[in-house]
């Protein structure tokens, strides 16, 4: 029994096509009011590239490969962690008229500094 994944050209194209279509439909349903968190959120999603970076780094042999693999993981990790941090922060701010934002004062403080 094997669990190895092997995708040839056409299987890959099918995956690309279906994923692209799913993305277009899912994102098309996101209201304009959430477009900034959507963008940072989808930014976070492509942070999965860090997994590819880890794979490359683990299989690195020469110092050059190790160095570039290190950069790949570093950038990928930054992409994922940063994307998550800002998206989570922004989404926590959206409230309806009935609810009061919990962290309002902290946010005002940040804004004044910026």
């Amino acid at each position, binding site marked *: 029994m094997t669990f190895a*994944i092997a*995708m040839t*050209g056409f299987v890959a194209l099918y*995956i690309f096509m279906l994923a*692209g279509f799913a993305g*277009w439909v899912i*994102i098309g349903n*996101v209201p*304009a*009011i*959430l*477009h*900034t*968190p*959507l*963008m940072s*959120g*989808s*930014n976070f999603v*492509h942070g*999965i*590239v*860090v*997994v*590819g*970076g880890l794979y*490359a*780094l*683990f*299989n*690195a042999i*020469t110092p050059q*490969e*190790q160095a*570039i*693999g290190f*950069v*790949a*993981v570093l*950038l*990928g*990790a*930054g*992409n994922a*962690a*940063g*994307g*998550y*941090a*800002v998206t989570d922060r*922004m*989404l*926590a*701010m*959206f*409230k309806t*008229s009935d609810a009061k*934002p919990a962290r309002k004062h902290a946010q005002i403080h940040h*804004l004044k*500094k910026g």
Partner: protein
Amino acid sequence: MLTQISQLVIGAADLGAAFLFMFGLKRMSSPATAPSGIRVAGIGMIAAVLASFLYLLTVDAAARPHMLVNVGLAVLALLIGGVGAWFVGRKVAMTAMPQMVAIYNGMGGGAAGSIAAVELFGGRTQGTTQLVVTLLGGLIGAVSLSGSVIAWAKLDGVLKQPLRVRGQQYANAVVMAVTVAVAGMIVTSVLGVGGLVLTTPAWIWTFFALALLFGILMTLPIGGADMPVVISIYNAFTGLAVGLEGFVLQNPALMIAGMVVGAAGLLLTVIMARAMNRSIANVLFTNFGTPAKAKPGAIKGSERSTDAADAAIKMRYAGKVIIVPGYGLAAAHAQQKLYEFVKLLLAAKVSVKFAIHPVAGRMPGQMDVLLAEAGVPYDMIFQLDDINDDFATSDVALIIGANDVVNPAARTDKASPIFGMPILNADKAAQVFVVKRGQGKGYSGIVNALFYAPNCNMVYGDAQAVLVKMIEAVRGLGAAAA
């Protein structure tokens, strides 16, 4: 056995991650469910990253002696990159969000490009298809990295002016052509066809240097007003690059995540370009902000100013007020004061709505986030299509820090550079107040016909100072009545 366990766990974790990403993005279709959406996606990410350490069980024999160093490097990179970006992301001001997103996006592109570089230098790509896909992903990732850095510099104010040189587009085309030619050299070099000037690694370095250069050259001439489109495009680019490298590494989770983001970025790009009434090609390849050749129709009349207090009292006794905020409001750090004023109006039973233009702010939806940050409930915030008919029945339209997005010339003046752009019909309100620093043109340098309309009065001054006066005026009324 170990190989099978590794493959099974990684496969299952990646499958779960891909599902959770899509499910999380799906939950973003409403502000109520969106916070749980990003958390769900976050769980998927952690699972995928932890599972990927099982790759260690199946590394090549050649890489096995380096395992300890490689793991150490990986943990170090995860810690530095992850903790550093997390810390910055938690602290950054909401007004700085566009450049932050640009940087995170560039990092993703850089990671994809780096993966391509490792695969190429290590000679791991098998067959022409894989080689070409690796190069394509590397090219797009590298362009996204350097382009995003330039976008960051522009948004952060490091680069103040768009850099334009005559014949720039031809130079860019040449750089692109040379990059593709070098990619061709790498393919022939790896496949072992002789007659090459450089060695394979030298060609690879050249390829990435050229790709990075292209990203810089492509982004430098694009003006600040077009940045929402540019950020969206690079988001799509990074997604595409990640998806392509996912194919190279035979990892479907990367392919799915990358492609979903690619589609998302493309969709947002189209929405933004449409909101500015321009094609994507027009944003990328022409120089916006250059004076229009045709002379726009002459504007009759003059700007009439009014006192902040008078405007405030007029709004206090109005039935229906629509507020059009623009980036100028955020630049003056006046969102909180604006909401304070709105709360006074609401207390006086005035109906208040916020009208948001798609390109208000410097990235899609930024104005909505800035208002949410100030505490404005999202059920008071309306988008262009949903509110545009309301202006005709409203008593007052209050415009703060916005200009081009309410310029009626976009509807009427065929010679205007913004003709055809969808605008908020604020001019149809019975009374229009415009809060503005002083007389002058907007971001795009176009004269606003609205300011000269008979139903429009200007309130000159810093947005924050004006709002303080408005709040005082309304509070004063309450005190007098009591």
